[in-house]
């Protein structure tokens, strides 16, 4: 078989589109961003509990008192675990995605229902959209739309569009042919046949499709989080990255609450909007009889009044809220409110240095936005200019691929920490293995496997291509590809049971503080010399921000400083990274001015 260079063609197609259609992508980005910002501003404005009250009134109207109470309890829970803001941005993201999806899907579904050709053409396209793994088009999405909510929303739309189209088509097609014929026989125009007969009768199916669209959108928020979409997806992604089971569960349960609420409400709404559903409701109500409080539903008018009153109260209270953020002044105000975007991968030294720089820059009058990204998204976003700099690139080895791909669009601000090292490690209770040489012949003890990390990681490449060969471990050991969180979870499990395990690790890493591990010696020096932790910036950042460029180039941390900062962050807790940085800077006076000097 000749090799078809399908991948290369796609690559050049993406390049072509980026070069020639950037105006279109920019326009889409503007529109989607605008929608997201607008909706998010509205959802984020009210006090959490008041907004929970509004949602509860809606639930009361649509489903009854118990649903209202449960809604309030669910959203109060989200507020109490301090994921309210994340939940609202996720809700905004889902709403934008769902609105755009429906605006596209319903007309497409109608068109497909009326034309066999359209239906036949659409079907493989929809299959493609539904089954192509989201990660595959997420990165091109970032190239086109930049990091942030937009590629997440686009990926969500691509994924949730098919059921919307399919259910609309199905709903219309399954309307009894004799009814359509009856409408035609009485001289109804095709348009009115659609509006008066087909759509009303297809409505329950279409509403089921809308429900599916919303639920699938929610299932995509984690993917959106990887592209910097923030919200609950970001929280989940952060939790996975840190093997933080607690945060993962909290964010997960928030998604579940949101999903159940949206599912039940759209389900109930479908009964309210379709004529047949309203009839069924009226029948059920008549059957139960009586005006018991349990069955009492506020009339739409009452519900609207309730929602409006709560919204007004919410708006009023918001007026009194005031910001009391500390601001830089005088000579120290270098930034004058200028915006800088930081990105980071959820590695400990990355988190520590990123929030350190966030604090340092804010003290110098910059407005800093720090977001977590998946590594590919981070580099793509920085190359595209949406992210200004990041502090956690391990060069020249670990992140070599990214550097090779994007070096034309990035600037290396130098290494601030080093050297790092890559190694294979075993728990210290594995007595007779101290060096890579010792692994030979012990395969059975480790079940012939090395629990690996991402197949794309630089370390995996060295491990498979060099270490196994040089130390004659080929054939005896198999590297199990997976993910860093997966590897760490497996390490945690084996460690608790005192089972032998061998994993690829790197220093610095918090695992060495948490577990008693042994780095296997590398007498042949195959791992190579350690990396330095580099700060990378988008091309042109240093010339746009001369002072910041100089500060970053001169930035250095030693091991004591870094580990103590990491420990401080670890002990302060999730979500309070910046507080930890402030406390740490207080304990280490003078460092801030040393790293970010201003001419007085």
């Amino acid at each position, binding site marked *: 078989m000749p090799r078809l260079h399908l991948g290369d063609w796609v690559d050049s197609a993406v390049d072509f589109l980026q070069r020639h259609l950037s105006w279109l992508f920019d326009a889409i980005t503007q529109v989607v961003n605008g929608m997201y910002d607008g909706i998010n501003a509205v959802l984020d404005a009210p006090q959490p509990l008041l907004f929970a009250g509004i949602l509860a009134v809606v639930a009361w109207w649509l489903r009854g008192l118990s649903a209202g109470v449960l809604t309030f309890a669910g959203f109060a829970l989200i507020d109490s675990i301090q994921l309210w803001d994340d939940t609202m941005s996720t809700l905004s993201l889902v709403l934008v995605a769902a609105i755009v999806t429906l605006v596209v899907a319903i007309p497409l579904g109608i068109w497909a229902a009326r034309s066999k050709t359209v239906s036949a053409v659409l079907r493989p396209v929809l299959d493609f959209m539904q089954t192509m793994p989201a990660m595959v088009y997420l990165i091109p999405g970032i190239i086109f739309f930049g990091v942030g909510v937009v590629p997440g929303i686009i990926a969500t739309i691509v994924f949730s569009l098919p059921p919307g189209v399919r259910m609309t088509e199905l709903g219309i097609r399954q309307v*009894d042919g*004799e*009814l359509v*014929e*009856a409408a*035609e*026989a*009485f*001289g*109804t*125009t095709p348009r*009115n046949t659609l509006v008066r*007969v087909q759509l*009303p*009768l297809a409505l329950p199916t279409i509403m089921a499709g809308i429900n599916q669209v919303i639920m699938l959108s929610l299932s995509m928020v984690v993917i959106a989080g990887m592209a910097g979409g923030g919200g609950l997806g970001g929280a989940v992604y952060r939790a996975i990255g840190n093997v933080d089971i607690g945060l993962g569960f909290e964010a997960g349960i928030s998604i579940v609450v949101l999903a159940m609420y949206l599912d039940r409400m759209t389900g109930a709404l479908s009964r309210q909007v*379709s*004529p*047949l559903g309203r*009839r069924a409701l009226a029948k059920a109500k008549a059957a139960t009889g009586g005006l018991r409080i349990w069955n009492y539903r506020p009339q739409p008018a009452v519900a609207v009044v309730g929602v409006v009153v709560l919204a007004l109260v919410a708006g009023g209270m918001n007026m009194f809220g005031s910001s009391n953020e500390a601001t830089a002044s005088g000579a120290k105000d270098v930034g004058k409110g200028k915006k800088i975007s930081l990105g980071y991968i959820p590695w400990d030294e990355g988190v520590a240095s990123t929030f350190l720089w966030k604090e340092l820059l804010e003290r110098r009058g910059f407005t800093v936005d720090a977001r977590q990204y998946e590594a590919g998204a981070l580099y793509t976003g920085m190359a595209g200019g949406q992210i200004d700099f990041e502090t956690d690139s391990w060069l020249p080895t670990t992140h070599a691929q990214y550097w090779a791909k994007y070096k034309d669009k990035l600037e290396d601000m130098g290494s601030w920490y080093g050297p790092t090292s890559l190694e294979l490690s075993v728990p210290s209770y594995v007595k007779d293995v101290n060096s890579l040489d010792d692994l030979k012949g012990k395969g059975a003890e480790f079940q012939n496997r090395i629990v690996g990390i991402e197949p794309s990681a630089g370390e995996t490449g060295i491990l498979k291509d060099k270490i196994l060969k040089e130390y004659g471990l080929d054939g005896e050991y198999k590297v199990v590809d997976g993910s860093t969180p997966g590897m760490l979870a497996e390490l945690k499990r084996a460690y608790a049971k005192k089972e032998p395990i061998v994993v690829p690790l790197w220093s610095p890493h918090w695992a060495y503080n948490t577990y008693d591990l042994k780095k296997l010696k590398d007498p042949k020096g195959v791992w190579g010399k350690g990396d330095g932790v580099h700060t990378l910036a988008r091309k042109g950042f240093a010339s746009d921000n001369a002072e910041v460029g100089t500060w970053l180039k001169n930035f250095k941390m030693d091991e004591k400083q870094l580990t103590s900062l990491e420990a401080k962050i670890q002990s302060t807790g999730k979500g309070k990274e910046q507080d930890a940085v402030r406390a740490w800077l207080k304990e280490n006076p003078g460092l801030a001015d040393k790293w970010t000097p201003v001419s007085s």
Partner: protein
Amino acid sequence: MSSTREVYVSRLQAEQLYKVFGRRPDEAVRKLEGGADRDELRADGTTAAVIDASFTVDPGQIFVVMGLSGSGKSTLLRMLNGLLEPTAGRVLFDGQDLTSLSAREMRTVRSSKISMVFQHFALFPHRSVLENAAYGLEVQGVPRAEREKRAAEALELTGLAGWGDSWPDELSGGMQQRVGLARALATDADLLLMDESFSALDPLIRRDMQDQLLELQKRLKKTIVFITHDLNEAMRLGDKIAVMRDGRIVQLGTAEDILLTPANDYVASFIQDVDRSRVLTALSVMTTPHRPDAGDCDCESVLADTPVADVCTVAARVPHPVAVKDADGSLLGVVPQERLIAFLGDDKQGPAVCSMEEVATHA
């Protein structure tokens, strides 16, 4: 037919209608005109649903198209109101060629002049009974108050007064079809197309509906094209009947024509199951009077259109052949008893000579 009604009531005419489904229909029509039959076309992947159908329906007439499933009768019906476009041929209604109308003009005709009643009622489940009955008027753009009034009148006509606020699924099958009928009547269309409208009903209810249709027809004098697969129903309702087979009309005539002179074995095999005594009338069994003063006695007599079954009843009570008279009482003919028995038994030869006859006479 009185001449005044001629002006008001419409008239339907089908001229050499063809409907071919599949590839190159026009070529198929040429082949059919050249004498090709349906099976030859089927080999090419085209289906000839209706072949060379011509008929006229007089004002106020119920025209029944009878045939088994697949005979093309429903396709034929749908060409009459343009739901299907004929491959060849014309449909004339009120002197207007419907096949030449644009889609928009055709819709106007359908909304005001032709209405339709369906096999499975085709009521809109999301509309109340009244809204269903008012549907055709709503399409015409009649204001709400007026269309509700007229829909209520139509419901009353079909015996559903007071059911307007109910929903279709709350009604029995027979009542649902009355709503379907009311919907068709509410628009005051002259032409009513009924597609197996009573086939989905129980036999008793079907009979009720047939009676009611005949009753309504006496008052409203619509022109009706009625499709059925049930020859008994066809004979009960039809002023004129077309029997269809394999897309062609194989016989066209009154119920009696078909019963007495079936065009071929196919039609003949159909009429075996028909209750002849209810379809045939005194007119078709009577013979010339055995004596000129046959009608002058005081015995019971029958009219020309009295069904044979009723003639039998009279014959049992009368000691001589039954006199058949017209409305004015003048003698048309007589029905001898043995002729009645011969007709019921479908015997055309008449009594033979019996070898025992002399013995019987002498005894």
